[in-house]
């Protein structure tokens, strides 16, 4: 039985809608865990690129092919996966891994990272 490929990995869509993470039973995420969260999101957004050697203090755009729609994907995925709301005025904080982790740390202190 063939299944609709638009359900799955080819389209980059989850097989089922993701339920928003709940804050109950939350634990603080470390900077390293937050970095991994961002790496996981980037792996979905730029699946053709090697992100294993990403330099934290160099802007993403100097290392990866990212356009404005891709940055909106980072914002959307943080919203979907962790219910984090990032106002538009704060988007410049997502310029590099270092600045992103620093920006997210206070926001992800009480996030369930499971």
């Amino acid at each position, binding site marked *: 039985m063939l*299944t*609709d490929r638009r359900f799955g990995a080819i*389209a980059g*869509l989850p097989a*089922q809608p993701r339920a928003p993470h709940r804050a109950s039973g939350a634990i603080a995420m470390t900077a390293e865990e937050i970095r991994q969260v961002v790496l996981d999101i980037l792996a*979905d957004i730029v*699946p053709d690129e090697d992100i294993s050697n990403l330099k934290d203090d160099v802007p993403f755009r100097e290392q990866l092919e990212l356009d404005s*729609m891709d940055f909106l994907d980072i914002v*959307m995925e943080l919203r*979907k996966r962790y219910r984090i709301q990032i106002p538009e005025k704060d988007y410049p904080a997502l310029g590099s891994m270092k600045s992103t982790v620093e920006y997210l740390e206070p926001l992800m202190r009480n996030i369930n990272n499971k």
Partner: protein
Amino acid sequence: MHAKLSDQLRIVITGVGLTAPNGNSLPEFRAALLEGRSGVAPFETRYFGPTLAGVCNFDELKYQRRKDLRRGTRAGSIGIYCAREAVADAGLNWEKIDKSTVGIYVGVTEHGNVETENEIYLLKGYDYDTQYWSHHHNPRTVANNPAGEISLNMGVTGPHYTVGAACAAGNAGIIQGVQMLRLGECDLALCGGVSESIHTFGIFASFHSQGALARHEDPTKASRPFDLARTGIVVAEGGCMFVLERLSDAQARGAKIYGEIVGYAMNSDAVDFVLPDPARQAECIRLALRRAGISAEEVDIVSTHATGTITGDIQEAAALRQVFNGQGRTLFNNTKSFIGHAMGAAGALELAGNLPSFEDRLCHPTINLDQIDPECDIPGLVANKPQPMDRVEVILNNSFGMLGINSVVIVKRVEQ
């Protein structure tokens, strides 16, 4: 009309790129049509459950990155694959071509349903809170998306747009290409049709509610136009893009020429949302013949549109009998019996599958034609195995759609 045209206004096909449920190139597709190989398979889509469909398996990563696939649509990917393959087949030195002189005209039955259904499905997981609605939704669902993705992928800066023409769209895309070349709007037309429709549950559910969705325990026997046991449409995805050029340009570069588009016509029934009108279909065929300066007797092969619905097949057979009645030499076939109904791609794929008959002088059959419906009886309908022909000079391709849209394209062999 045709006899008076200068070589600058005579338009020829010099490249074909396609993906069908039974082949990812014209040679593969043609072989399947001559071998009687179906491309219909079991398929499951959300909400609707198990059904049947014509599913393509072309290599999406041949011309796109994984990021492109994530960003774009299935219709866009199909269009890119077909357009790139057509350009390669045409032997064009793509890097040297002035991209501002290329036009992209893609026929679509519908566009946007797939992505809208996906977004609503995902949004359900967020209690329909629209702040989780994707920013990719608009660029994926604008009506020009499949043509626009081709322009982005290939760097084409000439015009690009889709032609929305229900299931007449494949022919309509080709006709648009011919017209734009004649108007001087482009020097190279990439045109045809695409369909991603199997990825929307709505098309299956709607045909089912209409009593027009095919069913059969053997998927390969489900699509059976003109057969007494037909039960409806098998929905398919696919695409076919042609490279069209002026005859003078094609000859100047020594291009291989598949055939010349010597006539076309489009008209409207203006009577019903879904039921076709054989009188208007016959009128459309006669108009295309008149424009081509060709009589019905001179047509060697008619590629029929019939989809396997009870009424639609009877209506087209009636139209064909009106035009070709009793002359006895024209042969008729049907490609949907192999691959199902590829919607916006259907007309283009069905024409492409017949083009090799100019060379091999075989009329591919209509498969699954075990007991012809007496109301669909067309003298010359080729059943179940290819029929050799003494000569093939003219192919006429029918493509009709909902809301009473009719299209006909006539292609003639070119001596080289």
